[in-house]
C-alpha cells in the first residue's frame, strides 16, 4: 500500500510532462553525511549563463550547453553506512521516467559491488528534451534531472573540465562478468 502511494505520488507530476524529483528524497538529507541539492530553473539558469564568460573556452562550452536548457535538478546523498535509502526511494524516481516519451538508454547493475547506474532520455522529434541519471550505490544515491534541449556531445565535452573525469576511469577494475 505504501509503495502504491509512493509510486502514485511520483507519477502524478507527469501530468505536467516534466519529471519532478520525488519529495520523498528530501527526507534522506537528514540521514546523509553529504548532500548536494541543486535546483536551477529557467530564470536562474539564464542568470548563471550570463555570468559564464564567452572568452574562457571552458565556460563558453557550458554557456552553449545551458543555452537550450530549462532546468537542472540534482540531488546527491552520500551516507556513512549502507541501507540508509530504500528501493522504494529509487523506484519513485524510476516511476517518473516511465511516462510517454521516456526511454532507458543505459542501465548497468553490478551485483558484486551493488552499483547501479541508469540513464533515461526523453526524445521529442529526434532531439533530446530531457535526461535523467540515476546512480545508486550502497552508500550513495544520486539523481540528476536535466530538462530542455540537451546536446549530449556538448555534455560529454565537459569531461576534463570542472572536475568531470576526462576519461572513463574505472574506480575498481573488475573482470568481466561481474555486471549484469
Amino acid at each position, binding site marked *: 500500500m505504501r509503495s502504491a502511494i509512493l509510486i502514485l505520488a511520483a507519477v502524478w507530476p507527469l501530468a505536467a510532462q516534466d519529471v519532478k524529483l520525488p519529495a520523498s528524497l528530501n527526507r534522506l538529507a537528514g540521514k546523509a553525511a553529504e548532500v548536494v541539492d541543486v535546483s536551477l530553473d529557467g530564470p536562474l539558469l539564464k*542568470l548563471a549563463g550570463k555570468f559564464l564568460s564567452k572568452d574562457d573556452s571552458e565556460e563558453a562550452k557550458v554557456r552553449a550547453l545551458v543555452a537550450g536548457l530549462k532546468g537542472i535538478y540534482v540531488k546527491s546523498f552520500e551516507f556513512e553506512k549502507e541501507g540508509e535509502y530504500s528501493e522504494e526511494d529509487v523506484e519513485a524516481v524510476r516511476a517518473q521516467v516511465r511516462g510517454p516519451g521516456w526511454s532507458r538508454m543505459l542501465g548497468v547493475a553490478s551485483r558484486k559491488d551493488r552499483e547501479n547506474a541508469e540513464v533515461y532520455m526523453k526524445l521529442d522529434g529526434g532531439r533530446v528534451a530531457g535526461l535523467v541519471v540515476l*546512480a545508486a550505490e550502497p552508500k550513495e544515491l544520486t539523481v540528476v534531472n536535466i530538462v530542455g534541449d540537451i546536446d549530449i556531445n556538448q555534455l560529454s565535452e565537459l569531461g576534463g573540465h570542472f572536475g568531470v573525469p576526462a576519461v572513463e576511469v574505472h574506480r575498481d577494475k573488475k573482470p568481466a562478468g561481474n555486471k549484469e
Partner: protein
Amino acid sequence: MSSLEDRLRDALRREDPGPEFTARLLARAAAAPALMPDWWRRLAAPFRPAKIRWAAAGVLACLLVVAGAVEYRQRQARIEGEAAKRQLVLALRVAGTKLHLARAKVVELNGGL
C-alpha cells in the same frame, strides 16, 4: 599737558562730514563693480527663496537614494549570478561524473567480453 597730547587731540578732533556725505557714499557704492557676475546672479535668482533651495536639496537626496538602490540591486544581482554559476558548475560536475561512471561501466563490461 604735553604738546604731544595737544597735537593728538587736535588731530583726532570730531569733524562733521557735511550734508552731502551720505549721498556721496551711496553714489560710490553704486559705482563699485558687482561681486558676482550678472549671469550668475540671474541663474541663481530662482533658487534664492528658501523653499526652492529645500526642494532642490530634496530632489538631490532622492536621486542619491535611487542611485544607491540601483547600485545595491546590481550588486545583489552579481552575487546571485555568481552563486547560480557555482550551482550550475556543481550540477554539471555531478551529472558529468555520473554519466562518465555509467559509461565507464558499460565500456568495462564490453571491453572485457
